[in-house]
């Protein structure tokens, strides 16, 4: 196993997930196989390859061609979204008082 039980619990905690013993077992195995695959990729020599964070990087996309002009366009979706919110109090969204973890 590449990944420890503590690491899986920590990742779950950061994601606000509570895992049962069985789930912990499943996810540990799945995460482990992902890490094993990454390890395999790590065997390749990439010292001459520029790190890539996005598929579209490189020089083809210069000068932020995909940016938009600063012009407002009202969306007016809030009423529809509040309809499906778990506990709205119009015009607000409402959530249980937040307690810092």
């Amino acid at each position, binding site marked *: 196993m590449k990944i420890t039980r503590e690491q899986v619990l920590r990742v779950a905690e950061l994601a606000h997930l509570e895992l049962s013993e069985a789930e912990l077992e499943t996810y540990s195995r799945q995460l482990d196989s992902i890490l094993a695959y990454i390890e395999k990729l790590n065997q390749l020599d990439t010292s001459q390859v520029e790190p890539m*964070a*996005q598929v579209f*990087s490189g020089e083809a996309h210069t000068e932020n061609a995909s940016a938009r002009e600063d012009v407002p366009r009202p969306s007016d979706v*809030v009423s529809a*979204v509040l309809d499906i919110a778990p506990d709205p*109090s119009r015009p*607000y969204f409402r959530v249980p008082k937040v307690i810092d973890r």
Partner: protein
Amino acid sequence: MSPGILARYEPVIGLEVHLQLRTGTKLFCACSTRFGDPPNKNTCPVCLGLPGALPVLNRGALDLAIRAALALHATVHERSRFARKNYFYPDLPKGYQISMYEMPLATAGWLEIPLDGATKRIGITRLHMEDDAAKNLHEGFPDSDRNSYIDYNRCGVPLVEIVSEPDIRSPEEAYAYLTTLKQVLEYTGVSDCNMEEGSLRCDANVSVRRRGEDKFGTKAEVKNLNSFRYLQHALEYEIERQIGVLESSGRVEQETRLWSVAAGRTEPMRSKEFAHDYRYFPEPDLLPVHVSEALKAEILSKMPELPDAKRARFLREFQITPYDAGVLTTTRALADYFEAAVNAGAPPKSAANWIQTELLRRLNDAGKEIAESPIAPAALAELLRIIERGQITGASGKKVFAKMFETGDPASKIVAAESIGQISEAEIERACREVVEKNPDNVAKYKAGNDGVFKFFVGQVMRATRGQASPQLVNGTLKRLLS
């Protein structure tokens, strides 16, 4: 704590300033950024974090951020990148903030602050863009003990974060840094820098060390310093607190503290079980940001004149005092007002005086900004020209000014309607003759070479005309009668 103990320590302070950029729309969606709109009116699938929504960068926000960076002499990088900062909180529906992390927009800038009659250079580590979180309302509802209410209008509004080097050595320097930063940013027009509306927010990293020590002490981060007064009070409190800890052989904890306005002290935020782990990673939904030399040059070419340059030019072009130039360039709006008045024909020196005394006092009393002045620069210029010509006195001018402020009418109309300055040359001549005839002793003294008596005659004539005669006319007439 005794000044002797305080003097043994040196505070080391760095400030993190969040500034809302003055755009029409949010950073990654086309929702309006207007302040004060009905709650949640300006929201859409992107800023509500609905599944499948994709961010699109606001070009206007990028231009403003570049302008801010250039005004702070920072190096704007050709390539920068957004990253996800992951944490869960109801004010952040996406589950992450889109910020910049390992490749910020700009680094290595500086700002010169006034200090004891000289200047000190404060380094700026970095400037990066990010989106703002929503406004949580924790109070004011019947169920506020159990629930929080959320207004997502502010969520996604474009911010820049400006991080200073730990170059600040006292609360006074911190105050000067924030004041100067605000002034420069206001001049560039990148933000309205309104602390009340939250468009300028400030956190501080504070530590203390024994004087002469090279190593920094352990720092605490102090949040919620959202007014100039709080900033200074909170820093003073925090510095003394840390010195107190060290003096009693304790250790300063690395922690985040909140300035409590009510208690007048910094308090530890509820401690987390473990340190934050934001798991930053490059934002896959946005392309890297590309800033060419051409774009930088274009933005630089449109950079408004900054406060230092404007001050120097006012001194050079208008021959006003350095003090006057300092006051008149406090804000761009005030400087523009002064310059517009001068361009409309007002004598610079008297425009400087009238703006600093009459205009600012009345605006202050009325709770108005310079932009809301009922007296336009050209209208002030007209009044000052009437005074300069000697048509009315300075004293009458103040009365006319008050009327102008009240009614918005032009000076010439008020002068005509109120018969101010209507004391004719004939009346002045009569008053002068009377004063000369009644005071033969002083006439003799004057003729014997006592020039000081001349003031007596002028005073008497002004009294007789209740201050409404033109001093130039009175002087001329008296000189003629007495020669």
